């Protein structure tokens, strides 16, 4: 469907009718009063039972055995922390009020339910319910619970219908400015390259040579110099960007763990580069290695996000550095790694990529340290761990891999500012 939603008939759903708690209490009062009247021979106890028994006399004799439910299911792709509406329509509820609510699955917050008043025609207007996924991932939403009640609330009919699973995408981190390389592949794009071309950004003025286009003659310079001069423009090129998402470790506070930051940072970076018509690929480095080669467009974004969130069932184990797929790493690509740098295989992979001549930049998302008590041994172990982490980062920096730390709170522009101000110079291979 155009808006990404699916409407489906849940069909006729069987209703399970039960006594309400109010009815059980009225029954207790009625029966208790009558029994007391019989045992004690005091008619006033029968009177004590009378109001309860009269109220029970309004019991609805005719109840629908089933209702028809139609669900306009939520979009298959939702973003964490965003409210997602969906609609439910009931028919055949007759003279019963229907209360609809979402019974949420874990990590889902449901909005308050809605009431569909009884309708004489038996056809009610659809109601809108909402839910909010609290964390990214492929997850259950929950089920829609419908409770039918009569006007005196003596009886309750209930039914439940499970909603389809959704892919909940991480909230993309903000990234307004991009990291650009000094050398870009010869493919038409939106970034101004150093090479002259047919772009719109002014590059300079040079002397006219036969074959140049006359419409580009710079008349001011020509008048000043006395010879024909020409305005030149920068070429506009596209970039190949490969994001490596290190999902091998998940440490830190839930909701702000390293895995959360990797997901959000990668999602934001992919969205930014795809919005400027660059070719973006993804390597998901987890228990299994999944990858998608660089490409452009909205469809590519969905493919990348599905891989990022759901992983792959048919990937390979990242047991060796050599297995990093060549097809996912086109020559001259900018490689942005989101990683806590805790997995030695990841560190070796970064080192290998640099040695193969790629421009690699690492966003360090490690924001926590191992918990330790205040004992001397624990303090020593903690210091050793910190020194090891510093050594890892130092060794990567020494071979020309910039490492910037991102806390997950600020936008990505802040730590990347030194690299977004000017292009990263790429040496000849």
């Amino acid at each position, binding site marked *: 469907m155009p808006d990404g939603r699916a409407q489906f008939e849940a069909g006729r759903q069987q209703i399970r009718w039960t006594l309400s*708690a*109010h009815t*059980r*209490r*009225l029954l*207790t*009062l009625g029966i*208790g*009063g009558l029994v*007391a009247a019989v*045992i*004690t021979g*005091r*008619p*006033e*106890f*029968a*009177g*004590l039972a*009378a*109001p*309860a*028994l*009269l*109220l029970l*006399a*309004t019991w609805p004799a005719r109840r629908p055995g089933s209702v028809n439910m139609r669900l306009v299911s939520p979009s298959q792709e939702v973003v964490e922390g965003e409210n997602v*509406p969906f*609609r439910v329509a009931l028919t055949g509820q007759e*003279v019963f*009020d229907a*209360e609809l*609510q*979402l019974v949420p699955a874990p990590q889902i917050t*449901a*909005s*308050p*339910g*809605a*009431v*569909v*008043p*009884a309708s004489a025609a038996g056809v009610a*207007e*659809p*109601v*809108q*319910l909402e839910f909010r996924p609290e964390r990214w991932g492929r997850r259950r939403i929950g089920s829609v*619970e419908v*409770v039918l009640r*009569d*006007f*005196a*609330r003596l009886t309750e009919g209930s039914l439940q219908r499970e909603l389809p699973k959704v892919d909940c995408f991480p909230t993309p981190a903000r990234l307004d400015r991009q990291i650009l390389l000094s050398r870009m592949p010869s493919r038409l794009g939106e970034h101004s390259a150093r090479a002259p071309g047919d772009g719109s950004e002014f590059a300079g003025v040079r002397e006219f040579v036969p074959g140049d286009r006359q419409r580009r003659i710079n008349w001011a310079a020509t008048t000043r110099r006395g010879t024909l001069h020409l305005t030149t423009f920068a070429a506009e090129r596209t970039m190949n960007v490969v994001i490596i998402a290190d999902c091998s470790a998940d440490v830190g506070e839930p909701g702000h763990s390293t895995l959360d930051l990797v997901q959000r940072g990668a999602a934001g970076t992919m969205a930014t580069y795809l919005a400027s018509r660059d070719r973006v690929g993804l390597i998901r480095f987890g228990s299994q290695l999944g990858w998608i080669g660089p490409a452009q467009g909205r469809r590519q974004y969905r493919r990348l996000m599905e891989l990022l969130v759901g992983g792959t069932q048919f990937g390979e184990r990242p047991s060796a550095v050599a297995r990093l797929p060549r097809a996912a790493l086109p020559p001259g690509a900018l490689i942005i790694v989101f990683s806590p740098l805790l997995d030695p295989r990841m560190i070796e992979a970064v080192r290998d990529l640099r040695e193969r001549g790629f421009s690699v930049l690492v966003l360090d998302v490690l924001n926590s340290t191992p918990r330790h008590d205040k004992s001397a041994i624990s303090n020593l172990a903690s210091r050793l761990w910190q020194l090891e982490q510093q050594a890892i980062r130092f060794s990567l920096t020494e071979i020309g891999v910039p490492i910037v730390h991102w806390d997950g709170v600020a936008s990505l522009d802040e730590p990347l500012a030194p690299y977004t101000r000017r292009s990263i110079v790429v040496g000849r291979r």
Partner: protein
Amino acid sequence: MKRPAGKRASNPDSDTTAERRQPGPVRSGAWRTVAATALLAAVSIIWAAYPLDTGRSGTKIALIVAVAAGVLTIGQVTLAAVPRLQVSDFSPFYVRSADWLLSFVREIPWPEILIVALIVLEALHHAQPWHTGVLGVALLACLFAVHLAESGARPSILRAQLPVIAAGIGLLVLAVGVAYVHEVTTGPAYTALRVLAVVSAVVVAGLVVPVGGWGRS
């Protein structure tokens, strides 16, 4: 402009299950119905127990059960507006104990136990018929207060049932009258009460007949 369907949730007479179950602050109105429940339960217990020294054997036990059931009924309706604890197998012992205790309060039908205890307490006394009649009205009010507190509904939902409630109280008055007739079997008072009973029966019958038309006006 067409009203959005979602706005229907704001029906003031609704007592949505969702509102009841969603975690969040307890509505201020809920405390009023809980307070009314507590007051009516206390009045019913005191009324059924008074005077305590005229009761037969077992009165004290019935009173203890009634008081305990009354307190736990109030606890139950209070907890109806409070979200459940998130307990897993890895929760600390005190959290699991608190959850078990709250489940004990929530799951057992304390209002039903209260009703039975009060009827037993009243039956163990040599009370006047009008005393039992007043207890009946107090118990009925208490049951409706429990219902409103538990469901979070507004008292206006009872408007549709007012004729039935009135008819029931009429029958209660009639039964109390019959009890007095049983005690006064001769003289002009007997004739007057019998006439009154017949009139009451006619009025009550007139209210009871259109049962099918109630509630949907």
